[in-house]
């Protein structure tokens, strides 16, 4: 038995070093099983479409050679411990060019330090919790190899709160799930309410647990308090239970919350009760641009689905790969540190499915996490659930995105 263990260990070691040097090795990590799997696997599948496209075109020219992408997949099961171990594993590989992924903020907090220690470039997507980037600014890290391509909760919470204010609401209820994501969303929303002039009065702040099906208690409190909207931050199918519970007790007010409200498990399971729900979106599964059209149909075909489980995750995964590829091309190297430098100063705009990225990142500034955040407020739009699909919440957003994609405008 002991010998078997040793062999496993040793074989594992050899295996990690046995890959050919003439490829760009990247790792995709995220939960591919369990509750957050729709996000994890959509992100992975979106990224793999991008990789397939690049590889089909012969790869990326680095020096004299055309290099293809080679993917390692690691399922972190949404567990911090697995996340930390995977990060250690990735950190110990000498020829890894970069990492894309992670859905759960807790996994970022547990694992990313190992990557940062070794200076391995990572693009976080779609984990949106603020802490995954603020931990670095708090620690005053000088040089950071972690980037993020996701509309972080700060942006989203600001949009959610201002949407409620724009709709002339004064009383809202705040609901969040008991995960890290929900709790940090609660804090972000509370902060934004204060920031935007305390116009909204919060009649109740209440949480629900993963797996809860009966939300009557929380919603009754909202109803008794006279809430005109329910601001919600949660990660899973419990969101649908909230929408259905609202219909049941006759609380006919809109749900406004984080982007997870666009996931199929909310839309399908709340059915008509979900209509009118609003959420910030970075990507809407509507073929408004040729690039988006190609991407959506490629995804549907490759994975034999009629709808992407989490379009936002898939699109972000896709774009993250293209941004990463552009950095490889610019760095003319598969060395992760050089790629990081290139990412901080991308010269060429990158045609993504979400938008055309121009200088998404800049050199890390501990005083401003936005230097490593790709998304700005104007790249995010308000989406609305309507009859089983997410559509643009207001038409102006739609027009802006189309123009963004056609004219290479980039961000301000």
């Amino acid at each position, binding site marked *: *038995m*002991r010998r078997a*263990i040793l062999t*496993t*260990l040793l*074989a*594992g*070691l050899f*295996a*990690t070093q046995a890959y050919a040097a003439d490829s760009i090795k990247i790792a995709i990590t995220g939960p*591919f*099983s369990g509750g957050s799997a729709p996000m994890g696997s959509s992100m992975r599948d979106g990224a793999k479409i991008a990789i397939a496209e690049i590889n089909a075109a012969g790869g990326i020219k680095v020096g004299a050679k055309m290099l293809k992408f080679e993917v*390692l*997949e*690691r*399922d972190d099961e949404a*567990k*911090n*411990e*697995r996340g*930390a*171990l995977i990060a*250690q*594993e*990735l*950190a*110990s590989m000498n020829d890894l060019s970069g990492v894309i992924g992670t859905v759960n903020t*807790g996994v970022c*907090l*547990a694992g990313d*330090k*190992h990557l940062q220690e*070794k200076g391995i470039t990572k693009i976080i997507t779609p984990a949106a919790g603020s*802490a995954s980037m603020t*931990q670095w600014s708090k620690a005053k890290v000088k040089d950071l190899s972690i980037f993020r391509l996701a509309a972080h909760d700060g942006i989203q919470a600001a949009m959610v709160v201002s949407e409620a204010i724009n709709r002339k609401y004064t009383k809202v209820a705040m609901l969040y799930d*008991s*995960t*890290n994501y*929900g*709790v*940090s969303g609660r804090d972000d929303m509370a902060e934004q309410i204060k920031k935007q002039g305390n116009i909204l009065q919060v009649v109740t702040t209440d949480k629900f647990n*993963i797996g809860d099906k009966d939300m009557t208690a929380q919603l009754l409190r909202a109803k008794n308090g006279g809430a005109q909207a329910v601001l919600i931050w949660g990660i899973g199918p419990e969101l649908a239970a909230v929408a259905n519970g609202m219909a049941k007790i006759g609380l006919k007010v809109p749900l406004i919350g984080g982007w997870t409200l666009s996931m199929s498990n909310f839309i399908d399971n709340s059915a008509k009760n979900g209509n009118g729900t609003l959420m910030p979106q970075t990507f809407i599964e509507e073929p408004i641009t040729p690039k988006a059209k190609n991407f959506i149909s490629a995804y549907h075909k490759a994975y034999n689905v009629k709808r992407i489980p989490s379009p936002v995750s898939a699109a972000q995964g896709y774009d993250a790969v293209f941004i990463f590829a552009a950095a490889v091309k610019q760095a003319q190297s598969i060395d992760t540190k050089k790629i990081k430098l290139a990412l901080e100063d991308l010269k060429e705009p990158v045609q993504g499915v979400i938008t055309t990225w121009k200088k998404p990142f800049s050199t890390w500034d501990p005083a401003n996490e936005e230097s490593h955040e790709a998304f700005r407020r104007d790249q995010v739009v308000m989406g609305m659930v309507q009859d089983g699909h997410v559509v643009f919440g207001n038409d102006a957003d739609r027009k802006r995105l189309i123009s963004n994609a056609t004219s290479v405008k980039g961000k301000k």
Partner: protein
Amino acid sequence: MLKRLILIRGIEGLMVLLLAAIPLLVNNSFVLGLLTLLAIYGILLIGLDITVGYLGLVNLAQAAFLGLGAYAAGLTVTIFGFGMLSALAVSTVIGLVMGTLIAFPSLRLDGPQFALATLSFSALSATVLNEWESLTLGAQGLQLHRPLLFGISLDAKGFYWLCLFFLGIVWIAMHNLLSSQWGRAFEALRDSPIATDAMGIGTYRHKVTAFALGSGLGGLAGGLYAFNFEYLQPHVFIYELMVILLLGVVLGGRKSLWGSFVGAVLIVLLPNLLSNRILFQFFSSTGFLFTLGAGGMALYQKKNRLFQAVAPMIAMGLLVVGSFTVQNTEDWRKAIFALMLFSVVVGLPEGLMGFTSRFLSRIFSIEAEPFAPLSGLEQVLVRKPVDGSPLLQIQELKCYFGGIKAVDGVSLTVASGTIHGLIGPNGSGKSTLVNLVSGLYVPTDGTILFHGKPLVQGSLFAVARQGICRTFQNLQLFSELTALDNVMVSMKGFYSTPLPLVLLGLAKRAEKRAEADSLALLEMVGLSGEARTAAKDLPYGAQRFLEIARAVARRPTLIILDEPAAGLAQPDVVTLLGIIRRIHQQGITVIMIEHHMEVVSGLCDIVTVLDGGKVIAEGVPDEIRRNPLVIEAYLGKGSEPPAATAECRLSPMPVPA
């Protein structure tokens, strides 16, 4: 003896050296991370094995203790700025204290009830950690930095060595504990809680101690866990982790430090196995061939049931097919684990380590450690002075179960130094009477005096401690323990070493003396040749004798034998008579329930006859046999119990001289 010691200790030492050397040989942070986790889980599983393996209880709280320990360490460091060792001490103490607290309400539970009580505790502690945001920061998680150890900041390598050091310490301490009286008592508790109390060993403190120690180790592991990951979230320590831990113990092999270690290795390495397709294919194919070979062999030798041989083959076969055909193995991770676990649990029920050690012991036949030279019986059972004065006085004792008057006003006196027979037809109240005296039942009314003073009622343990020991009509041996251990665990007077010293290994001399005395008792009942045989593997007669030797080991003033001859073959009955006479010679007073009249006539000084819960006669055996009331009670007047059996029991059998 020396060879054995060198071999076993040598392998353990080598293992530690090897583990400690790996970071020096390979510079790889992933390997280091895995090894650190391995050491931490090793400690955790050794703790879990105390309850799951030794106590035989399904404990679902270990993940909670890991969490409580982790938070205790994390909070003392972040809030009070504790150093490494003091923080670890706090987490261990938290584990011990919480373990003791939860042990109390769970004491009377076993099986699914115990599982649920511990599960509830886990859920509760996760809720508290999550909701007490002002202290723990709740779901946002607690970030901390590894504190200094004696002013030195440990890097990953140093921390790994620290964890390994703790694993070593825990290993040695647990080895000392489990090979002492405590370990035997834990196992005794698992096999028969009733006998554990009736032998004066005490279920209560052993169960609490076992659980508390296991939880303390959980807390220690938690502290190390916190310093390893430096980030904690409450939802980590929940049911799912618990199931994984439980599977680790079972797969590795219960009741074994090595088993826990192997379990930890499996838990840590299995998820990584799938990352490498070729490795996975190799392992599944090897596993499949192994099940084919082992299962085929077992079938051929007719050792296993068909299911036990074939089911693992099917499971591993599926795995092989999957390893070559499935597109994305990560997607099927849970199913893959399930198939592997299924094969091991069905095919190797004693766990990997149990199987390996059996296999190894067949190859390297290590001679067993020789016994201590046995003591003289006269020294072991110092002859007690007897004076014929009343030893046990029962007055107007009553015991009703609902409307049934099992014992209805019995008064009798047992004189010191006698063999007192207790007979009566089925349902006459003999067993109930004995259960009342020995403390299993609480009387409805009446008094029992022992040495002229009231006897504690309703506690087997307290009664045993006062010097009354008993055997059982339906054997209550500690079936998994060896014959020697069955006697040793009941030995009175050797185990006064305080627990901390036992952990340090300072109870070995007392152990040797207890062993010598126990061997003398085994010799007395003719079982010294079977000292190493597990009680469950002894022939029926030998089991009965072993129960007597076990009861005598407490050196009681009064011993109660509940149908000692029931089911014995004739030669064994003769041996039994000899044993009882021998005990009696040493001044132990005997109460004996018996149906065999030959045994009663051959031994008893006085016989009390019960019927319908009342005393109907008392006298010397010959008198009793002629007493018309007794004959009527046994033979009845038509509607009474079947005459044939009663007659059979009454008919004297030839008693060889």
